[in-house]
């Protein structure tokens, strides 16, 4: 972590700053932010080297929530049994985790997925994306000191969770998307309720825009803060809103297609640096806000045309994919969620590696926060939108 420190050009270290000619000897202070800190979004520990309020270096320490997902996966007796563990990785977007894992195993099995399942999975994943982004935006508002938008976001997230609950009985960890299908069919009133939600949700978005997005203080706090340039973003393999916020027009749903996203009309939202520089915190925030709108569009189109059919394809109870390996990635709310699955022909996976987007996105944090202030660091960590369950797995 001792690479070149990118401090602002006008930064002078404290001893030279006194005007009286006397040099006061000042020290850098080491400050532990976390593991129990309100804005590390979980049990992340950031070791800060600070000079007054200016950050000289950040050293993230992770692993407090390590639950050996990969070891568990290897010890399952069945490929399907991994799914509940995948649920618990990124607990804010369990649907997307399930789907990503199912995609990987299905690719190994080379199975065809029924039409109805494709539609259901897509609707669920997009609802989950909205729910996850709502938390990202809401907690970001709290990080910035605005409490009210947070509760508005949670109010609407509740409605999504209600939809999930009526479908599969669970509100957080669904175990819903299985290899080859989904666990339950849609309940009768689901389509109606989903439409109703999409209609009402636009109002919430507008309210949040009014009170937060274009608030002068919020813009001052986030624009030009934590700028992540395009080339750094790609080199550090950032993904999701983090990469798009840096102005890279890139979305796996479109560029490495899976599911049936190509059948609907939607656009990839990219940060344009409207309030400051491309790739600043405000850009990452606005990409999330606009993605929610796009997801609403997708859901509205998808619920119109869900075909009839079976929701479980006729795959055997005990799956034995032939020996081989596959890396399948999909766009979770936080970015590229990949599963690298190696099969040795038996009923349990030989190796499962989860490429967690939050893990990768967090690794770039020291690069973009040197020279910022302590308050900026809170803004930057919030805009990266990490879920420690996924970082530590």
């Amino acid at each position, binding site marked *: 972590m001792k690479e070149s420190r990118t401090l602002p050009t006008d930064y002078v270290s404290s001893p030279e700053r006194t005007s009286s000619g006397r040099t006061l000897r000042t020290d850098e202070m080491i*400050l532990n932010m976390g593991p129990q*800190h309100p804005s590390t979004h979980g049990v992340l520990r950031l070791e800060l080297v600070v000079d007054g309020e200016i950050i000289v270096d950040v050293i993230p320490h992770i692993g407090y929530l390590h639950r050996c997902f990969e070891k568990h996966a290897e010890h399952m007796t069945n490929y399907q049994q991994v799914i509940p563990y995948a649920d618990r990785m990124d607990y804010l977007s369990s649907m997307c985790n399930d789907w990503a894992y199912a995609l990987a195993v299905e690719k190994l099995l080379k199975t065809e997925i029924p039409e109805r399942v494709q539609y259901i999975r897509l609707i669920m994943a997009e609802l989950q994306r909205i729910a996850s982004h709502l938390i990202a935006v809401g907690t970001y508002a709290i*990080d910035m*000191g605005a*409490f*009210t938008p947070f509760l508005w976001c949670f109010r609407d997230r509740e409605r999504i969770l209600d939809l999930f609950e009526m479908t599969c009985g669970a509100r957080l960890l669904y175990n819903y998307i299985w290899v080859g299908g989904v666990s339950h069919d849609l309940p009768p009133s689901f389509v109606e309720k989903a439409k109703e939600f999409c209609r009402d949700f636009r109002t919430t978005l507008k309210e949040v825009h009014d009170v937060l997005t274009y608030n002068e*203080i919020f813009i*001052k*706090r986030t624009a030009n803060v934590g700028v992540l340039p395009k080339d750094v973003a790609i080199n550090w393999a950032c993904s999701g809103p983090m990469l798009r916020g840096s102005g890279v027009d890139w979305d796996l749903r479109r560029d490495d297609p899976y599911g049936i996203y190509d059948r609907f009309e939607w656009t990839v939202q990219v940060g344009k640096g409207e309030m400051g520089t491309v790739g600043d915190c405000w850009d990452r925030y606005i990409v999330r806000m606009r993605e929610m709108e796009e997801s609403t569009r997708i859901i509205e189109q998808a619920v119109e045309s869900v075909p009839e059919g079976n929701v479980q394809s006729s795959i055997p109870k005990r799956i034995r994919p032939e020996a081989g390996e596959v890396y399948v990635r999909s766009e979770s709310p936080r970015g590229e969620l990949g599963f690298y699955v190696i099969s040795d022909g038996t009923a349990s996976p030989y190796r499962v590696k989860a490429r967690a987007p939050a893990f990768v996105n967090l690794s770039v944090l020291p690069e973009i926060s040197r020279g910022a202030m302590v*308050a900026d660091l809170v803004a930057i960590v919030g805009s990266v939108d990490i879920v420690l369950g996924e970082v530590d797995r």
Partner: protein
Amino acid sequence: MEELLRSLIGESWILYLLLAAPPLVFILLYALVTVWTEMKVSAHMQDRLAYMYTGFHGVLQPVADILKLLQKEDTIPTAADRPLFVMAPFLVFIGMYAGFAALPFSSAYIGSNINLGVFYIIAVSSIGVVGLLMAGWASNNKWSLFGAMRSAAQIISYEIPIALALLVAVMITGSLNLQDVIRYQEGGILNWIVFGGPQPLVQKLLLLPFTVTAFFILFIAGVAEVNRTPFDLPEAESELVQGYNTEYSGMKFAIFYLAEYANMFLVSGIAACLFLGGWSSPFGELMSGPLWGVFWIVLKGYFFVFLQIWIRWTLPRLRVDQLMYTSWKVLIPFLFVCLFCVGLILVL
């Protein structure tokens, strides 16, 4: 009231105790109401209900909160500087309470009718900073220290706009005695200094833009002075955990809390006295008198307390450098212009 009591009891310590008691009673009652108001206002802004079970719409909840705080274990960190740690909340409270001494509650009651009332309040309210610094330092916690340093820097910066804004009103009335300042504004809403004071019409109209600006700035600086969002950096919970009071619990924490709420009313009350006619009725002779006076000043003060609550639950928080920028580069230059122009108008 002072004379009345003096004639009844004579010169003794009981007299001073009785004179000092009303603000304390007021503060305690007011804090109960405001805790409830804040929770309810924020809840309704956020589409929820807040307390609903303790009494009608949870009116008894603040009482329950206080009982809980009283029973809470009073922890002192082992590494803390004990005497300072224990003293700090009381110092903060004293600074605030001493300010209430010069706040006129009605034409008949003021804790201490001193001639330098305005000056006294500005001076005495700065004692609180010492308490905050002590709390931050004595906690022996880096986050607390951060909070304390921030609050010291912030309060020192915002004392200046407050003093300058008050000076605008003082220049117009020509007195530092708060009772005199209020009497000067008696006779209805149009005589309030925020609307130019009881001057001839032309002068009044000329003064109007400057008095309104000064009042507006006074309110902003007042919010900053009491460390409320968007200026709540010293205790910014998402950055500094809880700032200077991170390590406090139980009654000591409650005293910090009480001081913050009381301070909210103090700055509102001072703003109301100097710019909005204090205890004087907005309808001239109608509804005026010593008891109505209490009603009016509490109403005016409470309106601004409500405004502060409203702002708190709406706006995000500024950053340290932006906070300093606001004070030194925006508010103070504006006030200098106000002062200069008001002076010029009054001379002409």
